């Protein structure tokens, strides 16, 4: 594989942000197929269109996911990328790595792959980009035997679960996101590797309502940390913030002069329910009005903390627009305890209740959230054995078109028109 002229891509070596083109060229010194990645990409830059073919079902024996087949539509010009399959490798929860493990992964990809990766894919997996069909089983063998490491999900299956870094380095996390993410990933290996669902299904675990892993926007089953008691206040630290001794929001705005910290402007008046006020120099919170949005805690992390009785809110059914339009996940379970003591049994029960229903009624390529829309939230809550509460809706319906059930109406629906006409002439 020879070097190609890439005048357009060379323009992407300029500028202060690290250049993937420079990186590809460096890798091409030992992996000449990278010259063909660059060559084909340059051709796309000239033609303004992709040069990857649609499809190509490849995989390893026994798995229906984890590998995405990819073939060049100009293989004679770029033989190094004729096959360019992706392997999705399940990431450790929180995406921490020992260099020992990561180096071993890179050595494996040095041996069998193109030398390029994504750290990481959108769902969270480590993405190994570009290998040939004949290498797939060899990589999988070494991955499982030597690295004690498995593939992630692709296709209509449980996608590799992911989480924020949680308690590992965040004071706000209301449960151990890494542990439940790992435990459920292990519990559902079969569902990750063998597609049996109508479409993809994603779990994401965020430790608090800041939602750093975008669970509410991107997962069918979003577990978002919260608490059910009162925000913990350190009044002495509140005074330090007001005196300007502690930086607001951890110092996140320090490259611009926004003036001295003003607790009214920055905290009390930005609270969505205005449930905070000052009494003298004491900060007061009416916790019964608090919606646990995290803003006050974000701004004064040394003075305010989530409550002590922590757990999570479960929101269900988020997805990107294809097909029925984008959906955020809908709040279904206001509060649930998350504890490794019970092996997350309560969460597993919820997940499997959804799956039992969705696998029965879901149409081909219908996400859980779309199926929820099709049957309606009230029906979905009934399937989940959840009593409807006002928190399930932003506002009550404004139309009167209620799908009454026959058993809800005294006497049922069977009536006799002849009897009716005896009393009511037509």
């Amino acid at each position: 594989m020879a070097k190609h002229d890439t005048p357009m891509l060379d323009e992407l070596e300029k500028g202060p942000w690290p250049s993937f083109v420079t990186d590809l060229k460096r890798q091409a010194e030992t992996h000449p197929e990278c010259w063909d990645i660059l060559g084909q990409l340059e051709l796309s830059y000239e033609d303004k269109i992709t040069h990857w073919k649609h499809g190509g079902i490849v995989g390893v024996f026994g798995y229906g996911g984890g590998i995405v087949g990819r073939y060049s539509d100009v293989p004679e010009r770029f033989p190094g990328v004729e096959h360019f399959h992706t392997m999705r490798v399940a990431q450790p929860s929180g995406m921490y790595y020992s260099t020992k493990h990561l180096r071993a992964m890179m050595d494996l990809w040095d041996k069998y792959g193109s030398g390029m990766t994504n750290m990481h894919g959108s769902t969270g997996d480590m993405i190994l980009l570009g290998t040939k069909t004949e290498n797939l089983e060899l990589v999988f063998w070494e991955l499982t035997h030597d690295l004690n490491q498995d593939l992630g999900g692709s296709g209509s299956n449980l996608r590799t679960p992911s989480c924020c870094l949680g308690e590992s380095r965040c004071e706000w996390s209301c449960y151990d996101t890494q542990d439940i993410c790992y435990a459920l990933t292990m519990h559902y290996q079969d569902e990750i590797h063998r597609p049996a669902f109508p479409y993809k299904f994603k779990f994401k675990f965020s430790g608090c309502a800041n939602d750093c892993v975008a669970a509410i926007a991107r997962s069918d089953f979003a577990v978002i940390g919260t608490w059910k008691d009162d925000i913990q206040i350190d009044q002495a630290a509140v005074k330090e913030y007001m005196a300007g001794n502690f930086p607001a929001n951890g110092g996140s705005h320090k490259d611009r002069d926004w003036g001295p910290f003003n607790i009214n402007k920055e905290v009390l008046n930005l609270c969505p329910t205005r449930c905070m006020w000052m009494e003298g120099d004491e900060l007061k919170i009416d916790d019964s009005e608090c919606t646990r949005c995290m803003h006050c805690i974000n701004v004064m992390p040394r003075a305010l903390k989530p409550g002590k009785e922590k757990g999570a809110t479960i929101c269900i059914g988020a997805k990107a627009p294809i097909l029925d339009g984008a959906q955020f996940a809908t709040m279904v379970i206001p509060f649930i305890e998350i504890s490794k003591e019970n092996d997350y049994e309560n969460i597993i029960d919820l997940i499997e209740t959804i799956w039992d229903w969705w696998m029965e009624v879901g149409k081909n390529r219908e996400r859980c959230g779309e199926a929820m829309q099709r049957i309606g939230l009230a029906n979905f809550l009934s399937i989940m054995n959840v009593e409807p509460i006002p928190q399930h809706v932003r506002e009550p319906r404004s139309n009167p078109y209620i799908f009454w059930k026959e058993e809800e109406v005294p006497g049922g629906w069977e009536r006799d028109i002849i009897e009716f006409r005896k009393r009511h002439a037509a």
Partner: protein
Amino acid sequence: MGYDPKNPMEGRITDIGPRSYEEMLPPIIKANKGKWLYHEIPEPGVLLHVAEGGAECYTVRVGSPRLVSIEHVREMCDIADAHCEGYFRFTTRNNAEFMVDSREKCDALIADLKGRGNKFPIGGTGACVTNIVHTQGWVHCHTPATDASGPVKCVMDDLFEYFTSMKLPAQVRIALACCLNMCGAVHASDIAILGIHRKPPMIDNDRITGVCELPLAIASCPLGAVKPAKATNSKGEEIKSVKVNADRCMFCGNCYTMCPAMPLADPEGDGIAILVGGKVSNSKSAPKFSKLIIPYLPNTPPRWPETTEVIRRIVEVYAKDARKYERIGEWAERISWEKFFEKCDIPFTDKSIDDYRLAYDTWHTTAQFRYTSHTDAYTK
């Protein structure tokens, strides 16, 4: 012993999952997990977390193109071995984070990172533009309407000063998805760069019989624009195929996902739409979807100047006009979308008026509005 193609099930190991996170935690993290008290951002790109008992963890966050070579990852490993006892991590926005347990080690780490050219830019914290979440584009995907790594590089080059500083009203999360499948989940981003198609699919009647299940292709269209039809292939044979009612096509590309014989990508047709004002966090206001403000910008490799220019304009107007802590969507809602278009000098077109499902929810059903240049025809 290794893989034996004659006995593929021999000695096979499956369903072992990922490595446990517990093996991967840096010592300072492992020792203090669940004990963190608070954090600060001493300078852009550096986080200080303080634990019960006073332990400190300094984190240095560096940008990355996400599309990285094994040599690049090995270099990260070299850095982690030299400074961080052999551990580091990645963030959900494709940054890398190196953690150490003292300010001295942090300073040495920063000096090392800065000595490696522009490979490891330090930043991405606080009120900044952090790394762009993005997809594969022309580097690896079969359905893209634009490239991903290229436009991301251009936008980050252009906004670099906002990555390395914290001078914006709030964090600005940019995401790029190279087609409507939105593997990059750009639908809840402050600024979304979205690859779009504008030509309906072609029908490859020489291929369709072999590669498509016609009922799936027909069912894939959310608007019923794909119908069964008889067609003639290039050999003159009559075959079962489909036809597309182009007037009903909304260019989502779902038919092509289901049927490789219905390609719709096109150099003139494809390009970029810009959406703004989305957010994921529940902080202050509820999560919001990004809204479409520019329906189409051309694909102009290698530097995508139309895209970088308009994004810079939005960021700069926002930086000047928004209040502290206000996200782009919160700012736009406060000043009104009509003012947003006016202040950012972005022409409003009919393409920003929703006509898909639930469109009515976005119509303006009140007599309350702001007078802007858009109403001049009525008032001047």
